[in-house]
């Protein structure tokens, strides 16, 4: 099978060829196309979640407005949270990770390409499942954390919460598969020479996120399963009459829920550490410190869940412990912020759009962090609990730490993904509109919260001092929406009219800049050997696209092949054949979707058909084809 050709590029193109056209988007296992699908789909859900928030802001623009009913308002804020957390923030960073982790570690695909395709389809199907609830007017309406007893069958008798519980189980399948894929890719597929002290910080961020997903999602899956068993089959877990306890839900949810914050934030922080060195023209200050801080954050994040439960009457000792750990977790965040600021000061910053978004992020994130430290003090937390102050805080953290790095990443990496440059002028216009709109929308919520405005109420009376901050918030939120729209228009414009992007438009340091824009199916004409933390800066031979064999490049032709390297020092160990394009993961996902619909509607025939289809998909997927080592 290993025929050495004299034309390695031609051989590679043959081995890695995926037919163009619409159909191939349904069968592709190429990490770059899957990454693109993740990104576009997640941004579509971002638009849905954004529209939901704009409707809510319109409703809250003045006192006692009645644009929408309280029931619709409940569905909107619940779906806004669920969408932004599970259908936008997590998958959008999986999108960038999918596209860039294999490129940054210098390999040709993810470790499990068909699982990767499956993960995307399951994410899309879970999104369709959750949004199908809107079509019948039964979207989840008990908030994104759906506390029992409100969410149990007695107080929420409709199928709204069934969509919630099953939908979250559905998305967990996708996230878990994706996380395991990232972990194995990062541990086992790094280019020869990329020992663990040469892993780019963005890749560390994806690794920390993936480890947190593997350990943090199961409590949520268990919580949702128990809730569905109670609602659908009359089990007892959360109802105190029959020996259950509603607080069990809160524990399970927040054991997941707090690490979830870091699941979302860690890769975004990795984006920041990827962008800064490029635009200040020097390596990151304190690489080791940043990596240790990211890992410490992921770990400590598991110890603070009860700080979401300070007012539930837990024992004082437990509260004091969690309060202490909550103060502690600010230390690794602080380490990273000082490292970024030090790098910015030590280098020569070039204020292009990606760096603007990063600086905007640092300002916003510090503000969100400051209000976060305030919550760690229990007496203060008790005062502002469930008020708009909380809403302000977590939007500063989540929007600040996700949207700003994400838009920075769009400007930084889209030229690599699409091969087209975006407009700098409109990029800067978008940044300033987003930055001003964001602060107008969310800063007044601090004030409204301290003045006592509770969250999750669909309107309020005049004369409480809440009118002005709410009006400013509403104006700001529409401005924020406009700023986001500018970037989307800029993107579409670049696809049609944008100038061609060179291989390395910014002078970046990591391996994705050592290949064409967009990269070929096989990523690198030769799998590179890495001798530095900033290989593209330190190894000029990489810039020509193919590292010559005498400098360590491995063409690895003669099949759909990747390298397996050792975990710590990146020594080549084996050659691994990879699977080809397939539609079976899509078939299996369709089975899952029908199965979940069958359960939520109690249509057991549909559910059974879905299960059969899923089984058929799995069998077809694994049926031996003689292409990978055991089929």
């Amino acid at each position: 099978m290993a025929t050495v050709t004299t034309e390695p590029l031609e051989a590679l193109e043959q081995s890695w060829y995926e037919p163009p056209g619409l159909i191939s988007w349904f069968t592709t296992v190429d990490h770059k196309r899957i990454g693109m699908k993740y990104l576009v789909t997640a941004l579509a859900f971002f638009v849905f979640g954004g529209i939901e928030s704009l409707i809510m802001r319109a409703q809250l623009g003045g006192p006692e407005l009645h644009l929408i009913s309280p029931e619709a308002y409940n569905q909107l804020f619940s779906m806004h949270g669920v969408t932004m957390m599970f259908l936008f923030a997590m998958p959008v960073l999986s999108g960038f990770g999918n596209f860039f982790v294999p490129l940054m570690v210098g390999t040709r695909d993810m470790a499990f390409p068909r699982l990767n395709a499956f993960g995307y389809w399951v994410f899309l199907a879970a999104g369709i499942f959750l949004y199908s609830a809107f079509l019948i007017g039964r979207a989840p309406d008990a908030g994104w954390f759906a506390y029992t007893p409100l969410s149990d069958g007695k107080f929420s008798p409709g199928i709204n919460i069934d969509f919630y519980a099953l939908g979250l189980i559905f998305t967990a399948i996708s996230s878990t598969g994706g996380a395991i894929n990232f972990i194995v890719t990062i541990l086992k597929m790094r280019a020869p020479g990329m020992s663990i002290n040469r892993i780019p910080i963005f890749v560390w961020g994806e690794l920390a996120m993936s480890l947190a997903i593997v350990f943090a999602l199961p409590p949520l899956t268990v919580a949702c399963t128990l809730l569905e068993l109670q609602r659908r089959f009359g089990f007892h877990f959360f109802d105190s009459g029959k020996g259950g306890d509603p607080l069990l839900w809160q524990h399970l949810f927040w054991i997941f829920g707090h690490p979830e914050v870091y699941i979302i934030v860690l890769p975004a922080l990795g984006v920041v550490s990827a962008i800064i060195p490029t635009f200040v023209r020097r390596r990151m200050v304190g690489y080791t410190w940043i990596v240790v801080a990211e890992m410490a954050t992921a770990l400590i994040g598991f110890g603070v869940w009860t700080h979401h439960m300070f007012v539930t009457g837990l024992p004082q000792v437990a509260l004091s412990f969690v309060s202490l750990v909550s103060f502690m977790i600010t230390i690794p965040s602080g380490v990273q912020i000082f490292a970024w600021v030090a790098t910015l000061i030590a280098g020569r910053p070039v204020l292009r759009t990606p760096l603007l978004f990063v600086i905007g992020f640092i300002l916003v994130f510090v503000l969100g962090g400051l209000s976060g430290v305030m919550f760690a003090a229990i007496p203060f937390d008790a005062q502002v609990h469930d008020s708009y102050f909380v809403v302000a805080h977590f939007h500063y953290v989540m929007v600040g730490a996700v949207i700003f790095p994400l838009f920075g990443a769009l400007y930084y990496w889209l030229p690599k993904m699409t091969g087209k440059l975006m407009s700098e002028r409109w990029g800067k216009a978008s940044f300033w509109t987003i930055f001003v709109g964001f602060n107008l929308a969310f800063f007044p919520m601090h004030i409204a919260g301290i003045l006592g405005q509770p969250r999750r109420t669909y309107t309020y009376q005049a004369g409480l001092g809440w009118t002005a901050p709410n009006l400013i918030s509403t104006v700001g939120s529409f401005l924020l929406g406009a700023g986001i729209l500018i970037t989307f228009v800029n993107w579409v414009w670049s696809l049609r009219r944008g100038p061609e992007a060179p291989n390395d438009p910014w002078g970046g340091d990591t391996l994705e800049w050592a290949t064409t824009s967009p990269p070929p199916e096989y990523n690198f004409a030769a799998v590179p050997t890495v001798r530095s933390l900033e290989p593209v800066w330190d190894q000029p031979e990489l810039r020509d696209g193919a590292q010559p064999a005498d400098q360590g490049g491995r063409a690895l032709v003669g099949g759909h092949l990747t390298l397996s390297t050792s975990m710590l020092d990146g020594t080549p160990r084996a050659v691994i054949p990879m699977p080809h394009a397939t539609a079976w993961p899509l078939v299996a996902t369709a089975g899952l979707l029908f199965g979940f619909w069958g359960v939520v509607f109690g249509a057991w025939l549909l559910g059974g058909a879905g299960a059969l289809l899923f089984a058929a998909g799995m069998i077809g997927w694994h049926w031996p084809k003689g292409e990978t080592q055991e089929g």
Partner: protein
Amino acid sequence: MTTTAHEMSTIPTVPTGAPGERLPIVASGPDSFGWWGMWGLIATEAMLFGSLLASYFYLRFRTGAGGWPPDGIHKPELVLPLVMSAILWSSSIPVHIADRAIRRGNQGLLRVGLLAGFLLGAIFLGMQLLVEYPKILTEFHPTTNAYGSLFFTITGFHGFHVVVGLLISLWTQMRARQGAFDEHRHVTVQNFAMYWHFVDVVWVLVLFTVYLSPHF
């Protein structure tokens, strides 16, 4: 490619493009991706079971002040569960033997080991569904109270894992019959064995939690 235990073949290699370098085209254990993927799956599954068992103790210590099991339910009888446990745990032995055998290229022992493991697992499942559950159901149901819900959810969730393990075993046995494995190519056998041992180890914790702990 099939070989017997005594004619070991050298591992097949391909050139990588680096001057003179050839690397194995087959991998198992830590050199393969599947081995790491299985550890990832086991880690996340362990957290699933951990969350369920933690829920059990949480509800017991929050609500069980009036005695555990509550509502006059008897403490679980232990003879049958211990017999079932012995059967389930013993199934790991032939699976381990099969896993070791194929590393030496021994096809016969591979098939026998896989089959024996499958049968022992199936007997465990059969006893749980046909003997143990009907007996328990005469006293309480999943909907009786939180204790009943926890009992059936946790043991049922484990039983579901046994079913999945049996399905993977069937698949592995089919591939073994087709001669897909030899001393170099056996990552599927390895992964199945890891999963099966995990299901057996988790049963230690399940047995302790739902059967033994009410006696303390």
